């Protein structure tokens, strides 16, 4: 992997996004608070691809949108240079949109079916007063070529494209204003395998050529591993682990990361590995467990985990974890469980070993 200059592009501090939902109480009328993102802090470095993984409902997409202020966070700070994005005025925000863009998962829903591709992408230039007429058309056609589409498709409508091509249009639109930072929210999840690799390659190439910084949100661990320089793992609104990709995948410190990695079905029958199947399901973010969010499914959880929220700290060099009992370097979750086990202990109830 290329060397990343450890220059911060964005500093996310204690970011929170709460939603008020109905549904509590006997009549379902009491208001409840759903903590979609609950106090997340991390830095994004210039030129890196930061992968963000987690199961549905963990808050990874909400986090991405809140960093760009497509939704307004409940609390926290997003520092961009010296200034806090969350305090920007409308005018400031418009300027910021030039620097920061998003690519969505659904290449069907995110393109207006009544506009041509030329209009959809060209709109970006018009809104920001950067180009019109022939100049605009030339720029859009250049972009289409850049993302691997024929410039003659300028007058085509979204429905005339396949899923993979539509995703290329989405990428072209995000690139139009030459942003510095792009949030890619599950950009390849809706695509077939043979088309997925084409779009992954496009992202890798664009990043190399344009020096983009990417926040790559996905649930496919193999894809995230392939494309990311660092990876963050989320569970139930919190970041539980963050480190460089090799360290996360070879030496996870958080029991959730370890379990998650062990269950990926791999396209290689020879890759027999120790499989750790977590019992139970992710609790509702409207009523998360006390203490550590993950303790209800964690094979290492103790009394302490139900009382104290584990602090987000640097357990190894550049490796952040929120866990009272992080795995040591080289230690597997299975070993950690075995070490802990006493005859009277029933901790193994949370595990099926295969």
């Amino acid at each position, binding site marked *: *992997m290329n060397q990343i200059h450890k220059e911060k592009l964005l500093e996310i501090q204690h970011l929170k996004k709460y939603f008020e939902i109905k549904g509590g109480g006997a009549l379902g009328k009491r208001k409840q608070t759903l903590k979609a993102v609950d106090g997340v802090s991390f830095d994004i470095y210039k030129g890196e691809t930061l992968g963000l993984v987690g*199961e*549905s409902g963990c808050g990874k997409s909400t986090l991405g949108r809140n960093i760009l202020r497509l939704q307004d966070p409940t609390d926290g700070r997003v520092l961009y240079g010296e200034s806090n994005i969350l305090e920007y005025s409308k005018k400031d925000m418009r300027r910021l949109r030039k620097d920061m863009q998003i690519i969505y998962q659904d290449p069907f829903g995110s393109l207006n079916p009544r506009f041509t591709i030329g209009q959809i992408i060209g709109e970006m230039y018009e809104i920001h007063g950067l180009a019109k007429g022939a100049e605009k058309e030339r720029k859009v056609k250049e972009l289409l070529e850049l993302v691997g589409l024929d410039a003659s498709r300028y007058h085509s409508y979204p429905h005339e494209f*396949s899923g*993979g*091509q539509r995703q290329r249009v989405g990428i072209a639109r995000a690139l139009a204003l030459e942003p510095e930072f792009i949030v890619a929210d599950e950009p390849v999840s809706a695509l*077939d*395998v*043979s*088309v*997925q*690799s*084409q779009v*992954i*390659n496009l992202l*890798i*190439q664009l990043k190399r050529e344009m020096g983009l910084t990417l926040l790559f949100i996905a*649930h496919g*661990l*193999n*894809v995230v*591993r*392939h*494309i990311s320089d660092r990876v963050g793992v989320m569970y139930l609104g919190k970041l539980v682990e963050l480190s460089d*990709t*090799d360290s996360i*995948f070879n030496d996870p410190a958080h029991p959730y990361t370890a*379990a*998650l*990695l062990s*269950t*990926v*079905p*791999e*396209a*290689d*029958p*020879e*890759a027999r590995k120790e*499989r750790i*199947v*977590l*019992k139970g*399901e*992710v609790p509702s973010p409207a009523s998360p467990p006390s203490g550590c969010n993950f303790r209800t*499914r964690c094979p290492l959880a103790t009394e302490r985990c139900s009382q104290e929220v584990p602090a987000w700290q640097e357990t190894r060099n550049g490796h952040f974890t929120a866990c009272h009992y992080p795995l040591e370097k080289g230690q597997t979750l299975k070993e950690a469980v075995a070490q802990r086990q006493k005859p009277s202990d029933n901790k193994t109830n949370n595990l*099926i070993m*295969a």
Partner: protein
Amino acid sequence: MLKVEGLVTGYQGKDGFVRAVDGVSFDIEKGETVCIVGESGSGKSVTSMSVMRLVEFENGEIISGSIEYMGEELTTKTNEEMRKIRGAEISMIFQEPLTALNPVFTIGQQIVEAIRYHEPLKKKEAMDKAEDLLTLVGLSEPKTRLKQYPHELSGGMRQRVMIAIALASKPKLLIADEPTTALDVTIEAQILELLRKLRNEEDMSIMLITHDIGVAAELSHRIIIMYAGKVMEIAETSDLFELPHHPYTKGLLESIPKMSGARGELLPTIEGTIPGVNQMPEGCRFAPRCSFATEKCHQEEPPLQKVGRRDVACWHVEEFTASQVDPFHRKEDPVESNS
């Protein structure tokens, strides 16, 4: 046990008649787990719906070919006869367990209905059996679950209930159509664990439909690779991964990022896109995207032929396999490395 030959299934679409499955042949032996792997539009789901003779309920029609189950021809059976086979002999679980369950009946009522349809048991006895089934599929607190409605359960739990219903009649063949696709990874792992247990402990054949070749690698004895309504390759799982014999299989395996090995490199890709159902190319359907294709491939369709232990539909299977040294490494130009 199950022998499908020359199956052609089509749908009446708005642009005319469409052959979603076009001449598919394979068999499944007793106790065997076979995975059908394919991308969207490959015809993998339509194949399974044809075996169950469910296509007719969705505007589809089996046009030709035979489906032989335990020596009996299924394509000519009446609806009444099929109903006895469905459930009792062959059961099916679907991708979306919420729509497959009836929202106004409790889990218990739905399992009991399935049990009593095939076995003359009293309600109480059937309810006990339902509880056993829920225990078998690993659902916690089975007694409580019996009284709950589908919306009260999570996606993973509903899929377990679906499996319990499918197992109610002790089927000899279980067809699972993308059973884990709608589920999160940790829940997917639980369901795969359950299917693995059923495969090992119950005397049952499983036909698993999936787009995820990783799932197939973990569960199956044999894999059927489908593309655009055709079978491309059928091979034992370990053989397939060791040395794919069809260019499409190879392309598919290579284009998936691995959990070990190089990162950040450009992935080998299959250029182009999957053809739409009414724009099928002449000759081999994979030819327009195949870097090994010759004139012949664009004109004549290759038959599915025996090649050693496997079946492959490719005109150039011999040169193609000879050109490969290690399927997990990126190859140079195959024609060059052949010389």
